Each structure stands twice: as C-alpha cells, then as structure tokens.
C-alpha cells in the first residue's frame, strides 16, 4: 500500500455563524500521485486545502502530514515540506518573475539571508530549475503584469516549486485561463509528478480534466467523502448526481469515463 502524505481523522470545521462544513471527516491522500478534489461550490474544497496548510485550524480532529501532526509543525518548517498555490494571488505592480520566484526560497533563508542578501548556490539552483520547469527561463526581468494569464499562473507555480518541496497543492489552478493555458498547466502538473516525483493535490472544477489528469479523485459531498479512488473506476452518473445534484450523462472515451457536462 502506498504511503500517505496527508491523513485526516475525525476532522470537524465550520466558519463562524455557519453550519459545520465538515463533521468527522476521514480522508487519506496517497504520496507520489496526482490527486484531484472535486465537489460542488461551497462543499469545502478550498477550505480543505486551507486546513491542510494551516491557514485554517480544525475545531475537532487531527491532520497528519506523513507521520507527524500538522498542528505541531512550525509555519517555517511546513513551508519546506508543502508548497501551495492559492487562488487570487496579487503582487505589487513592478514585481518581476525573477523576484517572485526567488521569494519561494524565503523559508530556506535563515538569519542573515533574511536581510535580503543574494541567496546561496542552492537557492539559485532551485530558482533556476523552477523557472525551467515552468518554461519561464528568460522571463526573469519581466513584470508579472506584462505576462499572459497562463504565464502568470506558471510564475506562481514556479514560486511554489522554488520552495523545493515534495508536495504541491494547487487551488483551482486553471481558473480564469482559456482552454489552451488550462491544458498547458495540467500537463505541467503531470510532468512535475512524473519527472520530479511531486505529490500533487489540487482542486479542479472541470470533471473531465480531473478524470484525465489525476491518478486519484476525491469527491466531496455533504461534509464527507462521497467517493475516492481511480477516476476511471469511481466516476459514474450516480456519483455526479450525489456530488453536484444534477443528472449528467457519462460516456466512455478511450476507456475513460467522459462527462457530457453541457
């Protein structure tokens, strides 16, 4: 059995003044694969990512990162183990790709490095490799605002890669991208998993992309996991009805389920 990167046990969480979003959620995510979390709006996909990265604290239950309790981990150490690309990132108007990506090294710079001095060789190598992986070499001096939507999103991914973690979380990375950039990004995700062995956990809205680009799908519904596993095995009309509350036809294309979502 594959080792687990995140193990969630008995997790409860709700925002103040709202009913509980999760009540006793149990979930474990496999190391070394691409896992996509799907679910209806407001079912807690992003909230789950925020709980996994200590942006939010569970009111009950525990989360383990590999074998250690997440709660005991300092933010600085967590940043060396798990990198996240959140939604709706903003940066100052003159932020360049080079500067942004090198900020990914922040958790690795201690003491004097924090003064903003040029980083070590290791920092440099990590930044260079992150730029290469995302196809942004040569863009270091460009400002973010001068980039296309797809390039911009890749720059944020590059910052996360520069953290040099084995685990990468992506919160709706394809939002606001046209289909070409969506595919570009998802292929990048696959490539990072294959070549660097990155464990990827992401939230996607497009069910077909989730099926096509993930090893595992976690379908959230009604504060719990409706189904988890190989998308080819678990995605069917019944599950989609349960998760999204609409009847969708599922056909088979090249041996994989394909959801007619129009």
């Amino acid at each position, binding site marked *: 059995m594959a080792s687990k990167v995140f193990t969630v046990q008995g997790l409860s969480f709700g925002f103040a003044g709202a009913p509980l979003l999760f009540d006793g959620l149990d979930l474990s995510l496999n190391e070394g694969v691409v896992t996509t979390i799907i679910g209806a709006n407001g079912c807690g996909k992003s909230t789950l990512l*925020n709980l996994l*990265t*200590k*942006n939010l604290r569970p009111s009950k239950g525990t989360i383990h990162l590999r074998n250690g309790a997440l709660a005991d981990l*300092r*933010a*600085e*150490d*967590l*940043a*060396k183990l798990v*990198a*996240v690309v*959140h939604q*709706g*990132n*903003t*940066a*100052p*108007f*003159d*932020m*360049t790709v*080079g*500067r942004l*990506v*090198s*900020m*990914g090294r*922040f*958790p690795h*710079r201690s003491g004097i490095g*924090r*003064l*903003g001095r*040029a*980083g070590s060789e290791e*920092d*440099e*190598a990590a*930044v*260079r490799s992150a*730029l*290469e*992986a*995302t*196809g942004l*070499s*040569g863009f*270091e*001096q460009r*400002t973010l605002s001068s980039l296309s939507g797809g390039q911009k999103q890749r720059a944020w991914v590059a910052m*996360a890669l520069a*953290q040099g973690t084995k685990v990468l979380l992506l919160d709706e990375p394809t939002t606001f991208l046209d289909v070409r950039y969506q595919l*570009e990004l998802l*292929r*990048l995700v696959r*490539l990072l998993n294959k070549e660097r062995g990155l464990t990827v956990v992401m939230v996607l809205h497009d069910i077909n992309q989730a099926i096509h680009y993930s090893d595992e799908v976690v379908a959230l519904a009604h504060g719990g996991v409706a189904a988890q596993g190989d998308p080819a095995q678990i995605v069917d009309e019944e599950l989609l009805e349960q998760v999204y509350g609409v009847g969708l036809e599922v056909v088979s294309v090249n041996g994989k389920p394909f959801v007619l979502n129009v």
Partner: protein
Amino acid sequence: MLRKQRADGAAKVARSGSAPASMTRQVAAFVVTAAALIALFLVAVNTGSLQVSPSQLLSGLFVEYDDAVATIYDLRFPRIFIALVGGAALAVSGVLLQAVVRNPLADPGVIGVNAGASFFAVVVTMLFPALFYFTPLIACAGGAIAFVLVYSLSWQGGLSPLRIILVGVAVSALFTGLSAAVGAASGSVSSSVTALLDANITMKTWSDFTSMAVYGGVGLVLSLLTCARCDVLMLEDKTARSLGVNVELSRVVISAIAVLLASITTAIVGPISFLGLIAPHLARLVVGTGHKALIPYAMLLGAFLLLLADTIGRTVIAPMEMSAAVCMSIVGGPAFILLLLRAGGRYGI
C-alpha cells in the same frame, strides 16, 4: 509545450532584485539623492542671520574656535541633524505601515499614531514633568495605543483601505483635540507644549538630538532587518503563510517598529503628517517596491524632504518661522488627495 529557453545568466538575473527599476538606476538614485542631501545640508547650515563660508565652517569646527561657527554649532546643527533623522524615521515608518496594512495611503500622521504620541508627550510635559526623561518612551506608548485603536476598530475580517483611513482620521482628530485642550489648560506658560503642538524644530539642543538618534537609530536599524518580510507581506496573506511567514506576528513586530519611529519623532519634533506618505511614494517611483532598496532609499529621501521643509520654513517668512509640519501639510495635503484619486480604481475607495 515547455519551451526550453536557455538564457545564459538566467540565475544572475533572477536574483538581481527589484527590476524593472534596474540596479544601475537604483545606484544612480542613491548617489544623486545623497549629493542633493549634502548640498541641502550646506545650504541649511548657512541659512539664517549668521553666515559662514565652508572653509570657515570646517576650520571653526575642527581647527580653532570661531564665534559664529560655535553659535551655528549649538543652534543650527542640532536642528538640522534632528530633521535628518526625524525625516528618515517618518519616511520609513510610512513604508512599514503601508506594508503592514497593505494600504498605500497609510501614514503615521493620517492614521493617528502621531496624534496619540503627541498627546502623551504633551501630558507628560504638562502634568508629570518629573518623567521628562521618559517622554520618548511614553510617546511610543501613546502612538501604540492610537495604532491598536485604529487597527482594531477598522478590522472587519480584513482591513479595508478606506476604513482604516476614516477611523485613523477620527482617532487622530480625537487625540489632536485632547492635546489642544491640555495645551489650552496650560495657558501659554509652557512653551515646550506649544512647540510640541506646532511641530516646530526651533530651540532644539544636542540632548534632543541624542534621544532622537538613539531611539530613531534603533528603529531604523531594525527596519532594515524586516526587508524580506515586508516583501512577502505585500503578497496575499495566505501566500505569505505558505512561504512560512507567521503573518500575524510579523505584522505586530513591523507595526511596533513603525510606531516607535513615528512616536519618537513626534516626541522630539512634534506631529508631522504626510511625510510618511509622500517619501515612500516618491521612493517607490524611483527604486521600485522591493523593500531591500525601498527602505534605505526612503530614509535618504525622508531626511532630505524634512530638512528641505524645515529650511524653507525658516526662509520664506523670515524673520518669522513657519514650522516644518506646516510646510509638509501644504504640500502633503494635495499629494494625499492625488493619491486617493489615483488609488480609487485599484482599491475600491
């Protein structure tokens, strides 16, 4: 689809800091501003009823006693040096506050820190003269109280740029009113109180400069240590957190440094508004938003601007004097409105 663009020296470029304000441009900006500051210093030394030539000044300072030079040394030098350190402190305070509340309109004067510090300083001077030596520290407490008030009153699940300015203006008005009340109660007996209220840098002594330099120096050095953290705070909170930054703690620490810098200046010079707004904005235009260059450059520019304001104040209506705060307000008010109008689209103000 991954274009393998091999750009030589990519790594070198990647760490070169806050382009597009290029390194050369940044260096040039520092050199030019420093030169302007030295020139202004010489003009300031020679502005007033007593005038000496540079050579007379140098020989008077270092070689032999000279009556005119000694007078300038005791009367003008402390004032000039206080303006330099105070200007640097206010400018950096503005940079830090703007990073903390992620709001380009934050200024220690506008959001009430100066008024809080000033009120506490006035109360000490008036009611507890025995505590005179602790005035800077007590002023810091006042500044901190005002800041915490503004911060907590404008917090609604996040900091709205407009709310923080509105609440700041109200808190500032409250403390300014209280200071005026205490000042009025003192009659015009206490000239040190009036001087504090007017923010006039006249009649400063070397001991005033010592307090300014010690507390201000500590704050300025500390501010340099926060560069990388300020950069990260300019991103979204959750992104900063994902880089391992304890966002809440960083905010508290950086705000504390900002409050120290603004309060100490207020305790020595009096409340000066808008410098903490104008200097950082000009600095960003010149050296970019990277704090590694921004903070040191803001120091230089702030020092220049406050000395300029003070020197102009000494000259325009001579032999009367206009305080540096008045100068700053006359220029700063319109600049603030301009920034407010410009920010409208971006910040939903």
